[in-house]
């Protein structure tokens, strides 16, 4: 049976070097995805992800298990994302590097997909990215945590430090903005 996060944390604090590595392997993708969807830049998301684990490793002896390890990790990552957004003072927009052709890239990854599907998917992705970029940070964070990480309302509330009803309101407002923007974009496309 695999170790739980909390057991791995305990072992890591006890000096087992492999345990923290196991935690990294387990959580690197979700943390990277969270960072990417929050700040929207692949390289920076990778940096944030790496920094998250560095900080977690340093702070591990102080982790007393009041919260779940994943929540603790998410909090570190979100704080780093927030710092990044403030430092950069710009709205996160997901943009591929100039020399990267998304179609080619996607085609290479999924050769079975038809070019029409590929283009449609790419368009949709771009629309979603743009719409997400319009959201205020707290609404975007709430949506990302709920939609892509499956956190409960309570977990999000604990994580971002706000009342549960505020989380719901942020989600509602965020989704409403997204609905409007996506509808507008789709209409403009036609």
């Amino acid at each position, binding site marked *: 049976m695999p170790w739980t996060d909390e057991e791995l944390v305990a072992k890591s604090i006890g000096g087992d070097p492999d345990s923290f590595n196991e935690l990294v392997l387990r959580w690197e993708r979700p943390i990277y995805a969270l960072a990417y969807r929050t700040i929207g830049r692949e390289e920076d998301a990778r940096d944030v992800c790496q920094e998250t684990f560095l900080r977690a490793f340093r702070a591990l002896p102080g982790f007393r298990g009041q919260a779940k390890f994943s929540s603790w990790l998410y909090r570190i990552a979100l704080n780093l994302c927030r710092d990044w957004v403030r430092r950069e003072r710009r709205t996160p927009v997901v943009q591929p590097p100039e020399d990267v052709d998304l179609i080619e890239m996607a085609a290479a990854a999924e050769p079975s997909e038809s070019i029409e599907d590929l283009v449609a998917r790419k368009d949709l992705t771009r629309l*979603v990215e743009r719409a997400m970029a319009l959201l205020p940070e707290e609404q975007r964070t709430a949506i990302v945590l709920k939609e892509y990480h499956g956190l409960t309302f309570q977990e999000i509330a604990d994580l971002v430090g706000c009342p549960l009803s505020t989380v719901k309101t942020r989600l509602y407002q965020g989704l409403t903005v*997204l609905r409007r923007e996506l509808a507008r974009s789709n209409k403009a496309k036609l």
Partner: protein
Amino acid sequence: MTDSFCGYQGDRDEALIAYLYDDGGDARERVLFEGHLMTCVRCRDELAALGDVRTQLARWAPPEPAFAVGNGNPQSAIRNPQFERWRQIPAWAQVAAALLFLGVSAGIANLDVRYDTNGLSVRTGWMTPASGDTRFGGPAPSDVALAPNDVAQSGTISAPWRADLAALERQLNSDLRAMKAATTQASPVRGSSTTDAEVMRRVRALLDESEKRQQRELALRVAEVMRDVTAQRRADLVNIDRTLGVVQNNLGVEVMKDRQRLNLLYRASQRQ
């Protein structure tokens, strides 16, 4: 439709979101809102629209990270599945692989690269002198590249790195012999000598094959390096030429200014 009146008692937005995500909450409130949905077109429409938004959001996937985050973590020795597989390989195969690696290393260590009037030649200490496929643009340099034993034993080694290479070769050869001896000693315990001979024959074949491959790759790389060097040299020459031109121009301007100043002085002195 969406402008129709909604008479829900309570926080409609929160109830809508709680229903949309089906996230715990009060079961009684959920039932209540479900009842409300039966009668409220506005809420039903909005719920459907928000569901659509969620469907679209689900298609947004971040690009695959092109790195293992673990490489940067404080304990760089992350367990790698490849290493796990490596541990499952039988001991004799690991010995064979080690021998292969040592052989390749020895071949590389005895590498002799020359570029002279005869052209470029590349050979390793394992080879007979200068085979055709390692050469570029010149006849076979029969007189180049000391044989490995020459390198090891010659007292007239001129370049200091040759001594290092000879020492390395000796070391590798002794390691190789030790490993071979160990394999030979270990083999009677495990199986017949015929099997060991077979294994050794395969290892040797692998070594030969690997050496040839290395040789080809090396030749290719050297050719690439030579091409790059030539291109860079040309670019440097063009730059130097351009810079010289600029310097000359500047010099000419300075000379002209000096001449003007001299003329000015000359005229001034004549007036006095």
